[in-house]
């Protein structure tokens, strides 16, 4: 592989990384801050894609983005409502909503599991036309993705330092303390999940429009991929303030995509993506646990050598 091969490879990885970085930032809010593993992410991602596509196809390319964001907030609201007001276990609430959204998403696409946007005006096609002939012509996808990530990053780094943002972080940290500060943790959970899912839906919407098509499987496995990216980001930037860690999450998303894209170049079949992301998540989550078990294991081995009555065998 020579350098001229590398550039488009890098660009693709960067684009895809940035699109999924929005979902990674959503999990940064729900998983890292609120301590909720939101398993409705896949369905919400797809919902953002379908709603965005339908609105764009009906002739509103700009409206499609707030529409997708709104759909995501609604999705988050429902998951949070089930958790906080209906007594549904948080993991289960996500799974249930995720399942329900499969039907809803097909209904949104008008009883179809695939929508084509080849002749549809989207923010991407509009920017592509605008940039035609300039040196930026090839990077219209990158510009939109980077802009979206930047806006979300700035929003998060501001929001998480406001009183509401602090309350959301404390809810994941110590809900008792939130209550004694006269704040209802149900409220902070609802707000947090609404915002997180807005990012997820935006992520789905932009990915679908950049690919000019959406199918019902576009979001499947997204939660694992995003979690893998988030955990990679945590390894790269383990310490620091919330903004630094959020940037780490974005970098994690990019690295994940880069490794994956390179692996594809070396003839790894595309269907391996989900296996790879699952393995990364398993390694990242279990490593700290296994590290803690190590001293115990060492002592066991040592005792086995000595034998039960303390004599050398």
């Amino acid at each position, binding site marked *: 592989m020579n350098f001229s091969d590398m550039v488009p490879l890098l660009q693709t990885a960067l684009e895809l990384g940035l699109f999924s970085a929005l979902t990674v930032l959503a999990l940064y809010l729900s998983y890292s801050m609120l301590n909720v593993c939101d398993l409705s992410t896949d369905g919400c991602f797809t919902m953002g894609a379908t709603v965005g596509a339908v609105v764009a196809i009906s002739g509103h390319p700009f409206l499609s983005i707030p529409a997708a964001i709104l759909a995501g907030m609604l999705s988050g609201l429902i998951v949070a409502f089930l958790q906080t007001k209906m007594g549904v276990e948080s993991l289960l609430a996500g799974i249930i909503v995720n399942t329900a959204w499969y039907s809803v998403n097909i209904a949104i696409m008008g009883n179809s599991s695939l929508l084509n946007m080849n002749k549809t005006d989207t923010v991407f096609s509009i920017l592509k036309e605008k940039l035609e002939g300039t040196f930026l012509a090839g990077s219209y996808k990158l510009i939109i993705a980077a802009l979206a990530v930047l806006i979300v990053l700035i929003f998060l780094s501001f929001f998480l330092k*406001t009183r509401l943002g602090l*309350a959301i*972080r404390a809810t994941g940290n*110590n809900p008792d303390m939130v209550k004694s500060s*006269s704040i209802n*943790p149900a409220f902070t959970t609802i707000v947090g999940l609404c915002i997180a899912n807005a990012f997820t839906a935006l992520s789905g919407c932009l990915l679908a429009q950049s690919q000019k098509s959406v199918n019902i499987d576009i979001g499947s496995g997204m939660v694992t991929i995003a979690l893998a990216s988030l955990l990679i980001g945590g390894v790269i930037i383990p310490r620091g303030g919330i903004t630094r860690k959020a940037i780490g999450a974005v970098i994690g998303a990019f690295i994940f995509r880069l490794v994956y894209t390179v692996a594809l170049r070396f003839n790894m079949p595309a269907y391996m993506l989900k296996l790879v992301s699952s393995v990364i998540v398993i390694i990242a989550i279990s490593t700290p646990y296994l590290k803690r078990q190590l001293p115990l294991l060492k002592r066991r081995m040592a005792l086995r050598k000595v034998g039960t009555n303390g004599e050398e065998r």
Partner: protein
Amino acid sequence: MLRISNISKTFNPGTVNAKLAIDNLSLEVKDGDFITVIGANGAGKSTLFNAIAGDFITDSGRIVLDDTDITLMPEHLRAIKIGRLFQDPLRGTAAGMTIEENLTLAAGRGGWLSRISHAQREEFKDMLKELGMGLEDRMKQPMGLLSGGQRQAVTLLMATINPPSLLLLDEHTAALDPAAADKVLKITREVVEREKLACLMITHNMQSALQLGNRTIMMNKGRIILDVSGEERANMTVADLLQRFKEISGEALDNDRMLLGVE
């Protein structure tokens, strides 16, 4: 200021594990009362606190705080008027957030989207300085780095930053080493006196139960079996207390954790 009338609570009702934790209990706390609460394990002391703070809704009876009926009020709304400290210093603060962030949440000033202001930061700094623990220079450090005594002192600050009407102290110094316990207790007395708070404090130390505050209640099997104040209390010794317990409950106060008064 706090009037509890005939509250009862049974846990796991209708099962073999049913336990009557609070049994038709009534208590009136007057403005400025500092009441120490003693009793064996399982007597219902913490359950009484949980009932007042709203961890659960009582099965019957009424709780009125400052002329507001709080019997059915959710916990986070009661927290406006009720400050609370637990034995476990980890329970009162968010470990992953900085000292100033914890204080900001407790203070609850400004709108939802407001950020920590410079003036507020200075205010926190002065408060922390008063604790005399050097925490004023560590405001940007995560709470998790502090010792148990330091965390409990900050928790106390958080509970009283907006002076509540009532302070519930559930053995809040029991998990601390003696020096830290003394320090936290000293700060507690200062705050209670300065803000003229009404205060209920559970303790296992019979001696300090008689020394601290102006009134002592003893609980047994979900009831208040002894309520002493004034001259009667001033002349009371730990031995008297044990004798009274025996007379009323018909059994000797026998408890590993009960300290008989050597400080």
